[in-house]
């Protein structure tokens, strides 16, 4: 059975290691924060100028002047710091953020990502996504394996305008976990519980690499 959004978030949380600084995109990536094991010390960065994002505030503590990049009200933690947008993207561009998790419309088998623009539809803008994918050391994409109309989102090459090139390292979908190989291709690592390799093959338009037994995810 394919994973729901929470399942994807839970699986991605397993990729997080102690001591990481992490930027979480809007949508499923934001959910990941809820499933990071308590024993890990990690710090979440919000590109509008906050390092150390805490939980949503209690009603009486809500502050208009303290939001995350999704414009949600948040709180700070002991050790949090505030800074301006140039410093924030310096932090991102300079490689100081260990892990970026973000959504995508399409990923290509060489690691290109498209997630900001659909021709003919109103464009809202790329926000910080292009900076993040151009600079992060480690990029994990969280997305559905197929679009709502049933088309594969793992492609030989992206059809939509790109956000960045050769940057995605790992993809966690409702069906599978896949590495994007430097040499090109989606290497199947894990299957969602009850999802077969055949089903994943069928749902993957790009080059799928399957070697040996593919275990089920352990969520």
């Amino acid at each position, binding site marked *: 059975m394919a994973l729901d959004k929470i399942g994807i978030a839970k699986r991605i949380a397993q990729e997080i290691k102690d001591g990481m600084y992490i930027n979480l995109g809007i949508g499923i990536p934001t959910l990941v924060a809820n499933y990071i094991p308590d024993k890990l010390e990690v710090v979440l960065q919000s590109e509008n100028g906050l390092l150390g994002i805490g939980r949503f505030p209690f009603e009486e503590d809500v502050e208009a002047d303290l*939001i995350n990049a999704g*414009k949600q009200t948040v709180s700070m933690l002991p050790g949090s710091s505030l800074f301006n947008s140039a410093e924030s993207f310096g932090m991102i561009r300079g490689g100081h953020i260990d892990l970026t998790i973000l959504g995508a419309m399409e990923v290509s088998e060489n690691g290109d990502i498209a997630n900001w623009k659909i021709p003919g539809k109103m*464009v809202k803008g790329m926000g910080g996504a292009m900076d993040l994918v*151009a600079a992060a050391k480690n990029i994990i994409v969280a997305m559905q394996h197929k679009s709502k109309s049933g088309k594969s989102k793992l492609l030989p090459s992206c059809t939509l305008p790109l956000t960045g090139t050769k940057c995605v390292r790992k993809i966690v979908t409702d069906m599978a976990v896949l590495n994007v190989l430097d040499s090109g291709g989606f290497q199947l690592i894990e299957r969602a519980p009850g999802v077969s390799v055949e089903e994943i093959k069928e749902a993957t338009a790009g080059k799928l690499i399957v070697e040996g037994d593919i275990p089920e995810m352990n969520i």
Partner: protein
Amino acid sequence: MINKVVKNAQEAVSDIQSGSVLMLGGFGLCGIPENCIHAILELGIENLTCISNNAGVDDFGIGLMLQKKQVKKMVSSYVGENAEFERQLLSGELEVELLPQGTLAERIRAGGAGIPAFFTPAGYGTEVAEGKEVREFDGKMYLMEKWLRADFAIVKAWKGDTAGNLIYKGTARNFNPMMAAAGKITIAEVEELLPAGELGPNEIHTPGVYVQRIFEGVGYEKRIEKRTVTSKN
């Protein structure tokens, strides 16, 4: 210390002309210069180019200037959450230049710091790179991006002093400090205006040299776009 105080928003923005290039601080509705925006609405000027990370919402922030058709062009990284914006864009009334958020921040920072151009990896291989110089450094590809400067930079701070020194609060800092340095004329509105010497010199985010006009704003609404809370137990 040089005194930068003006009476109010009306006096601060009074010489902004149609066709001017403005920078307006804020991320979403957080840290936007509410008083100056309202004063600009009353000015009857138009054809403005607005450099601002976002374009407000329909009935707040820069959205209000859009409603009044004062804006010819927006330079932003994200312009969702705004139906009137969409209408004007699709009808061709409004021009928009979308930039990666970090590129926008750094171009403004470069404008204030006298750096006419720099290289960034953001947007390489995408349509953002079209027409831009591409160059390889240490095996990685970068785009050359140029500085951004403005006729007027309009920023909002938490506390300020008569010498123009500013301290921002929380994530309301965002683009405000870089914009303060990138305006030919920089106007700062603050929640609390104090005598010079009342701010700790070590805690000042924007040194007064960048600010030409400062005033204490009134009636801040500080609208919240997404009120998310944790319920107790």
